[in-house]
């Protein structure tokens, strides 16, 4: 985390501005630089937000005005939201998405923590093989698994069930979890555990009071990353499900047909898209520091 957050020494205004130390010009130069940076910030903000804002705008448009191409709705309506929440196709999918993603997240963090603890703290042969394996899996083309899993799941009867999605999600999120967690676990001063025991704490107390609080941030970060991964998946969701019973929201959106047979589903799709996006965005913004640390922890040697 520290590697990213702290470069307080870097006060040179732009790499291409040599010799800005001439005293007289400094304030105006700084003001220009500030303006430039603000403009850059605004530009990046705009580009990042536009596709989402467009969907928000579409979701508030009435069926009549949805094709007007205007970025700000001329007639506002909540009908699209009322529509999707009145339909089991969407509400059931939302429940499926939440349930499947939460269960996968908990399992991935538990199994991942066990493996990451072993990798960070214990000496045992096969450790590198494990890290190599995790790397391979993280890169694995999911489509290669779809055909065999489709057939296998039908044969053992877990096609179109929660568990049928949880298992592949677990597989693809475990490497992520193991990387992130072992990077965090390496930073924990494990000697504190012994120190607490010397001071009279039982092993359980030492673990719960000393180690668990130190490990928690890494686990929360990992949980967020894994949750986003599961929430985001589309390929498995459309391949390994066939009914409302276990279809998640991204898959369900692709099957929307609109409130009535004649209504364009654009409004409904936009509303559903906004509903599943806003909570994640809020989450991401709240935990941005940790997410950045987690995303980059496994990938850079420092």
């Amino acid at each position, binding site marked *: 985390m520290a590697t990213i957050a702290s470069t307080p020494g870097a006060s040179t205004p732009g790499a291409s501005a040599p010799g800005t130390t001439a005293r007289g010009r400094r304030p105006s130069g700084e003001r220009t630089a500030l303006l430039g940076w603000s403009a850059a910030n605004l530009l990046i*903000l705009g580009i990042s937000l536009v596709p989402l804002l467009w969907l928000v705008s579409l979701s508030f448009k009435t069926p009549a005005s949805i094709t007007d191409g205007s970025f700000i709705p001329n007639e506002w309506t909540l009908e699209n939201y009322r529509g999707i929440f009145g339909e089991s196709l969407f509400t059931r999918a939302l429940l499926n998405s939440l349930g499947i993603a939460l269960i996968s997240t908990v399992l991935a963090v538990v199994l991942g923590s066990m493996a990451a603890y072993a990798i960070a703290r214990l000496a045992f042969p096969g450790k590198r093989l494990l*890290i190599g394996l995790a790397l391979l899996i993280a890169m694995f083309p999911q489509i290669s698994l779809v055909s065999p899993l489709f057939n296998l799941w039908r044969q053992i009867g877990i096609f179109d069930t929660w568990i049928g999605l949880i298992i592949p999600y677990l597989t693809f999120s475990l490497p992520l979890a193991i990387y992130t967690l072992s990077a965090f676990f390496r930073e924990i001063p494990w000697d504190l555990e012994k120190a607490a025991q010397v001071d009279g704490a039982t092993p359980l107390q030492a673990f719960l009071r000393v180690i668990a609080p130190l490990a928690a941030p890494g686990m929360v970060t990992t949980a967020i990353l894994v949750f986003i991964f599961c929430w985001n998946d589309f390929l498995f969701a459309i391949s390994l499900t066939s009914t409302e019973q276990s279809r998640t929201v991204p898959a369900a959106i*692709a099957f929307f047909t609109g409130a009535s047979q004649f209504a364009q589903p654009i409004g409904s799709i936009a509303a559903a898209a906004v509903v599943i996006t806003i909570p994640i965005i809020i989450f*991401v913004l709240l935990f941005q520091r940790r997410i950045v640390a987690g995303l980059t922890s496994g990938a850079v040697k420092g």
Partner: protein
Amino acid sequence: MRRRSEPETQTAGEAMANAGEPTNADERTNGPAPANRRRAPLSAGARAERRLGWALCAPAVIVILAVTAYPIGYAVYLSLRRYDLRFPDDSKFVGLANYATVLTSSLWWQALAVTVIITVISVAIQFVLGMALALTMHRALVGRGLIRTVILIPYGIVTVVAAFGWRYAWTPDTGYLSGLFGDATPLSSQVWGIAVIILAEVWKTTPFMALLLLAGLALVPEELLRAAKVDGATAWQRFTRVMLPLMKPAILVALLFRVLDAFRIFDSIYVLTAGAYDTRSVSILGYDNLFTALNLGVGSSLSVLIFLVVALVAFIFVKGFGTAAPGGEGRR
């Protein structure tokens, strides 16, 4: 000038090759680590530690292998059989006939070409933009935190949702971008379709690239840049001669991640064009073969071929460019 005192990094290949025999690399990298009893005959404690290590990793390994190694083996088996889902009883061993079907089909080669084009162009753009963003965040006077927060927004948006956002932006009569090129309808031609797909891909994943590069940028010592400046190096020279070489490990890992991830592109294409107008990627082709053509035999041989291509790319990165395994040995 200070040299980085890290031990030389190890590639994933080496790491795996050495996996069986314990070396003392751990002690080297972890500094004064406990548990330095390897050279002596194993004590009871060390044996217990090994057993615990294996026991703790076992569940994760089992889940991972159960859903990857076994299905890939099963895919190889299926790919050698004629297996049409409409006539499941008619399945029989046909040798390499399915592979012949795929490799002589123009659909496969076209999908592969489209996938490679999308991968190469989008990763190249991501690299340039990501580097610009990373440098911006590294140098920013104001709003460093703001930019870092904002660029996480695309990361947080579900790919399918973002793809719908782009699709409706370009849909004739509906979208705010549809009039941009006159009467042209970008999502109904191959070149423009691919361009929009690349745009969506770049928008979604440049932030990730930028963050990886930013973390790599933090490894470049500030003194070194100042020293180069004193010696008269221009900004461009400092970037290409000092920063880039020092960031090379981080860059290679970021590129490896992005290339392999871009190669399996599926979601955006499914939503944007559904593979129409010859914009199919290999993943879309595999999906279509399974769920539209219902041909499990040919679909499985596609799965195996895609897996082989990805393995080849990873191998080239690791062996050819010496990309080190992220999270492997060599870190603090």
